[in-house]
């Protein structure tokens, strides 16, 4: 059936290509098998014919009459151009066109603002919840945590006026119920087998050990690469591993505290996580040196943590001393 449509198109459009010398001669210029792609072969020549030859009148009428799904006619070159012989259409003024577009745009914008305002709190709440759970998993259960931003090479708790937290790298120090520091939760992303893998892991700077790892988002293959979320052994292998991590084939371990077992058949995904952790720690290590742990006091309500994930691994925020700000 699609063949028939295609042949009909090709036969009907023979005339339109004359007078435009140099155009590709094959009628299968664009053969959408009935419309796949936005335009059929008719409108192409129609559009070109409108520009090149003024006599495309009857064809354009035909085109209007036959509804063909997928056929799209595109905006003409100059507004108000006498539509190549379509007699019954009166030209619309430019003002009217602009007015239409502006009105449509304004209405669209208004509706979107409403939906945005409705949905944003829910989205942020969900992201904060996910983040809180992830931090809990990788740091093994902190009661309180805070968001510390990396700003101009330093760790700051509060950003100066007018600086938006979006896009800034950040880490999350965690404290247990008595206010004792438990470590940092650090997130990052790196390209794995299919697409970016987002990971959050816990890190203890005093012993340079990774405390735990959790994959937040991935597009790896189900059944192959998704062992990074399914294989408990692999995930558990990140607990108490010393930096810098080394990924090794399963079974060849020598008991070295730096080693992490990779899962056979998914080495690319696993390696990506190992490298990601190494890169992030390497980038943040100089900043973490002098960090002073100040647990937020219980009277101060815990701020909703900023859930947007920080920078892609490998971007070094730069060196500098830690600067203490009042929490």
């Amino acid at each position: 059936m699609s063949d028939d449509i295609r042949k009909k198109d090709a036969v009907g459009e023979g005339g339109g290509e004359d007078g435009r010398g140099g155009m590709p001669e094959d009628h299968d210029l664009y053969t959408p098998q009935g419309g796949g792609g936005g335009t059929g072969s008719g409108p192409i020549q129609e559009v070109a014919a409108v520009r090149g030859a003024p006599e495309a009148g009857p064809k354009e009428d035909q085109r209007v009459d036959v509804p063909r799904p997928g056929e799209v006619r595109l905006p003409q070159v100059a507004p108000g151009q006498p539509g190549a012989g379509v007699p019954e259409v009166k030209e619309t003024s430019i003002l009217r066109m602009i007015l239409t577009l502006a009105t449509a745009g304004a209405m669209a914008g208004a509706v979107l603002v409403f939906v945005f305002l409705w949905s944003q709190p829910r989205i942020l709440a969900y992201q904060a919840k996910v983040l809180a759970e992830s931090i809990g998993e990788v740091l093994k259960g902190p009661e309180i945590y805070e968001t510390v931003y990396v700003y101009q090479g330093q760790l700051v708790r509060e950003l100066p006026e007018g600086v938006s937290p979006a896009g800034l790298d950040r880490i999350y120090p965690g404290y247990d119920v008595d206010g004792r520091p438990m470590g940092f939760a650090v997130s990052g992303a790196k390209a794995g087998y299919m697409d970016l893998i987002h990971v959050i892991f816990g890190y203890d700077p005093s012993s340079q050990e990774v405390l735990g790892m959790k994959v937040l988002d991935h597009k790896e293959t189900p059944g192959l690469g998704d062992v990074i979320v399914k294989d408990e052994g692999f995930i558990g292998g990140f607990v108490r591993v010393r930096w810098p991590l080394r990924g090794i084939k399963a079974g060849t371990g020598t008991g070295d505290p730096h080693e992490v077992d990779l899962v056979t058949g998914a080495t690319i995904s696993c390696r990506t996580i190992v490298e990601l952790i190494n890169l992030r720690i390497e980038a943040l290590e100089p900043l973490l040196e002098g960090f002073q742990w100040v647990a937020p006091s219980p009277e101060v309500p815990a701020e909703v943590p900023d859930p947007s994930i920080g920078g892609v691994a490998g971007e070094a925020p730069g060196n500098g001393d830690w600067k203490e700000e009042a929490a």
Partner: protein
Amino acid sequence: MMGELLLIFVGSMLVTNFVLALFLGLCPFLGVTAKVATAARMGMATIFVMTITSLVASFLNAYVLIHAPYLRTIAFIVVIASLVQIVEMTIRKFSPALFRELGIFLPLITTNCSILGLAIFQTNRDYNFLQGLSFALGAGVGLTLAFVLLASIRQKVDLSDVPAVARNMGLVLILAGTLSLAFMGFAGLFS
């Protein structure tokens, strides 16, 4: 830095090929690839539009859309549609020869997932100007590569004796699948 840019370029060209791995730009992929010449020309036009779109998208993301992220889709598609229109008019005015070569494909690119997909992926991965540019170039070249490869296979296959049921789209899709399978071999190129 050059190394990183090269990585992004080759990555989007081969490893996550826009057509064969990310499924963007399938409509022209099946429609335009009957002949190698037209496939190549479509690819060139796409590279051209992708590059410009990438620059504009980076600009929009950096300065305009921070204040209203929910307008992203609308802004992108409107910009792409206008961009293509402007580019087409400009080419037609300044280089009729180039217009004869490329011009017919430019409108087809507007409602094409590959350009909007490029803008969205670039936004999701937070690329800056240069990274976005190499991403777009890689995507365009990879797309052209896929188009031309499939077109050359189809041209050969058209001369063969294909069973009636498989003629046209059935066979083309299976060929495309095999091509996609082949490109999977590039996975993990940089690990």
